[in-house]
């Protein structure tokens, strides 16, 4: 099968406009004849479900949480980028495009990224119209701040709760369509399979998490807006429930998985405190606007925050400012993370040894504590709450943690996967961030896909197939998929082994972090592959899931998700093994410059790796989508 990205021809700035005109339309009166399923209600899912409902389609939306408002987009702190140029500081759609392509280390499509930058301005307008309370200046106009990887201030924010406010805006729009009867909402419902007939996605199989009932839903198209898979590392900044199951089941039904090894490690998270740790908490990278990152010049094991205050300037190493004078503390996330790891590997880490300082002393002296409180108050509170230390009185300690996955289901320019009628939006797809995502771009992409891309592109597919091309849930394929889902659940419950689900998950996570985390090598990856294969075999013979299938059973939910994470973990390792270059979040030890910076191999790896599932325990097949760059010149990223 040949991968067709369907990027429109023509000049970059005209591609999307031209494409929108060329897409087929569904007549307003006919839209009600089409059913669309949306799985996940984060920024991408809620905005898509609401917008499609507004257009007149019949939408069914699903979320595993008790309310669509809980989706993990809600936890995004820092902000959302848009090329509004309200600050008169030289921003433009092209500059946002350029920064995003460069930040992604030239592993994203030009056409997609330009479109993202183009619609970014509409997103801000839309959110303000919905009553999202963005931060404002005293004159009443919108405020901006700067973020890593950019030299302009284009980030819109709502204190440290931007994701929450944007999601509540989209949740409101979704609620409006639920009230109008255009969206039927299924809370506490998990998608467990996608049904494909004659090569097209026809519906999904779900489990009601309260009653355990397995249900079939058919539709003309299925949208997966199910987020990323960072929880494959067990410890990550993702919510506990975030999982890859929907995407993975789609992968097994024919959707290719794009760049699975591209993982983002976020530099500013609260360090691990013990083995009981269940998740990691991010401190928004916006903190790097005012906080200075440092460690002592000489190793000082166990150095505490309160003692750090007395350390003279001459004994401190502000390593990001020293190595990258033009970007300083605002270098992109992968660079900041890798450098933090490096100084800790040198033995100069503070606290537990796996931490660096993020120091606000100078900012507080310069601007006053009140100003800093107004900007970052909730983040400082959160830090104090979790660590029991006061960050106004001494530097914070931070360490990198898994935060975001740039990889995901491969989609074309229309956001369609390799299964016709099956779409992936937001973090669930691989598309716009290349090998590394810039801060404040995830919210932008989720809402771009949901509000401004899918409402156009889905019409083209639906108009092409026609409303008669729908298969009812009485079709044997639904029965077959239901039986398979039931069989898997019964198997999980009947093993009754000796190890808890979390034990397997932790073991998988440690393996992934050690060998497929911030820095990867061939030897390590090969070792990881073996460990994961053994873990999979052990899981299916010795996992212990108590309780029944026909009730609320949180262990059963977790077990199904961990089983999928184990399989995904192996694919991530395969992908990392294949990509022998360093790029973005993927650092291959064999591929670095003499100064120890990441070295890309553009002549060999300027492609998207799209993996095709070939059956249980069969090697997956790699397909390559060549990336063409006509508007930017590929350079080794330099933030010096």
């Amino acid at each position, binding site marked *: 099968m040949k991968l067709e990205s369907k990027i429109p021809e023509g000049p970059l700035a005209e591609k999307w406009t031209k494409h929108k005109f060329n897409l087929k339309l569904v007549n307003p009166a006919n839209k009600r004849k089409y059913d669309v399923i949306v799985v996940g209600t984060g920024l991408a899912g809620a*905005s898509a479900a*609401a*917008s499609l409902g*507004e257009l007149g389609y019949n939408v069914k939306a699903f979320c595993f*949480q*008790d*309310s*669509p*408002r*809980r989706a*993990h987009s*809600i*936890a995004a702190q820092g902000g959302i980028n848009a090329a*509004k140029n*309200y600050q008169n500081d030289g921003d433009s759609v092209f500059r946002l495009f350029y920064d995003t392509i460069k930040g992604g280390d030239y592993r994203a499509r030009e056409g997609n990224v330009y479109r993202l930058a183009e619609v970014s301005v509409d997103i*801000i*307008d839309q*959110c*303000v*119209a*919905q*009553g999202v*309370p*963005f*931060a*404002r*200046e005293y*004159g*009443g*106009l919108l405020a901006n701040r700067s973020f890593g990887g950019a030299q302009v201030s284009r980030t819109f924010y709502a*204190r440290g709760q931007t*994701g*929450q*406010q944007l999601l*509540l805006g989209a949740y409101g*729009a979704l*609620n409006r369509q639920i*009230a109008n009867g255009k969206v039927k909402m299924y809370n506490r419902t998990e998608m467990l399979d996608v049904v494909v007939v004659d090569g097209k996605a026809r519906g999904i199989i779900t489990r009601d998490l*309260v009653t355990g009932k397995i249900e079939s839903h058919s539709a003309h198209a299925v949208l997966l807006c199910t987020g990323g898979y960072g929880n494959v590392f067990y410890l990550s900044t993702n*919510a*506990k429930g975030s999982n890859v199951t929907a995407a993975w089941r789609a992968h097994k039904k024919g959707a290719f998985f794009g760049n699975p090894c591209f993982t983002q490690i976020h530099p500013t998270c609260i360090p691990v405190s*013990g083995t*009981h*740790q*269940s*998740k990691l*908490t*991010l401190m928004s990278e916006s903190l790097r606007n005012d906080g200075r990152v440092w460690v002592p010049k000489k190793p000082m094991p166990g150095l505490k925050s309160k003692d750090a205050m007395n350390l003279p300037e001459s004994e401190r190493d502000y390593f990001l400012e020293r190595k990258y004078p033009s970007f300083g503390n605002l270098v992109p996330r992968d660079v900041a993370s890798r450098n933090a790891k490096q100084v800790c590997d040198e033995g100069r880490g503070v606290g537990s040894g796996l931490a660096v300082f993020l120091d606000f002393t100078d900012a507080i002296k310069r601007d006053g504590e009140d100003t800093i409180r107004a900007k970052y108050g909730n983040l400082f509170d*959160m830090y104090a*709450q*979790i660590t*029991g230390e006061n960050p106004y009185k001494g530097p914070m300690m931070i360490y990198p943690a898994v935060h975001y996955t740039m990889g995901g289901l491969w989609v074309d320019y229309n956001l369609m996967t390799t299964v016709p009628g099956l779409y992936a939006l937001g973090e669930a797809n691989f598309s716009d961030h290349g090998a590394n995502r810039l801060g404040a771009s995830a919210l932008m992409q989720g809402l771009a896909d949901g509000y*401004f891309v899918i409402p156009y592109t889905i019409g083209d597919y639906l108009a092409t197939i026609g409303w008669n091309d729908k298969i009812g849930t009485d079709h044997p394929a639904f029965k077959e998929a239901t039986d398979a889902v039931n069989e898997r659940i019964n198997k999980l419950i009947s093993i009754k082994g000796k190890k808890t689900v979390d034990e397997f998950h932790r073991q998988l996570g440690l393996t992934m972090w050690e060998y497929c985390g911030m820095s990867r090598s061939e030897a390590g990856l090969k070792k990881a592959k073996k460990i994961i294969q053994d873990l999979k075999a052990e899981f299916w013979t010795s996992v*212990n899931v*108590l*309780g029944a299938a026909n*009730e*609320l059973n*949180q*262990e059963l939910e977790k077990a199904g998700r961990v089983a999928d994470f184990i399989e995904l973990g192996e694919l991530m390792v395969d992908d990392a093994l294949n990509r022998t270059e360093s790029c973005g979040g993927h650092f291959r030890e064999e591929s670095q410059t003499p100064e120890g910076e990441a070295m890309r191999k553009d002549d060999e790896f300027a492609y998207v790796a799209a993996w095709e599932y070939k059956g249980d325990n069969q090697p997956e097949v790699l397909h390559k989508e060549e990336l063409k760059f006509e508007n930017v010149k590929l350079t080794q990223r330099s933030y010096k």
Partner: protein
Amino acid sequence: MKITLKVWRQKDNKSKGAFKTYQHDHVSPDMSFLEMIDVLNEELTRKGEEPIAFDHDCREGICGMCSLYINGRPHGPLQTTTCQLHMRSFTDGQTITVEPWRAKAFPVVKDLVVDRTAFDRIQQAGGYVNVNTGGVPDANEIPVPKKVADEAFDAATCIGCGACVAACKNASAMLFVSAKISQFALLPQGKVERKERAEKMVAQMDAEGFGSCTNTYACEAECPKGIKITNIARMNREYFTAMLSSYQVETKGGGD
């Protein structure tokens, strides 16, 4: 640390529940309250006893999914969410009682899990601005004074956890409802529909079986996001103003 836990166990919505006591000897002061239950649940699983069901997701205090009524207070002794409560807030040897949210409008699903879809239905009744995607004015076309935007933001930080209902002796949801009504009553974008919104959301709140406000301020004292009781005053004003004009709203339930 060692603690004794008295936890509400209830098989499902139809079964009768009861407290069960657990001795928990492996508690670190740095654990969050939920991590403490995670560890207990793993121990229970190893012993062949079904783990305790509880709601949680983001574990960073923003999704609003975690709940738990701990020693008679929603989200425990601190004014924060249960996921942000750490065991250093308790003492060695302490007995801790853990119950689900208790309110007619939040029926128990299992153990510590309750059904809060009543909150969703209240939001569906009018917790939004009626705008479609696209065709909206430029974001900077309508300036909003910073003070107003900040006040709207303060109301908008509600995470919908339901602690206000659990804290209230009347199981009133007025802090929750007033937060959304306030956000939109303050912002120019929401002002257009402020009357209809207030009427519809209050009507739905009543239909769901939440109680009335008798000004005990318990909700404000327990709200993990510090939502102010002044929002309730604003909601009452919005509601009365609306009722004095001509909007008529059909309610879906009995009301009080």
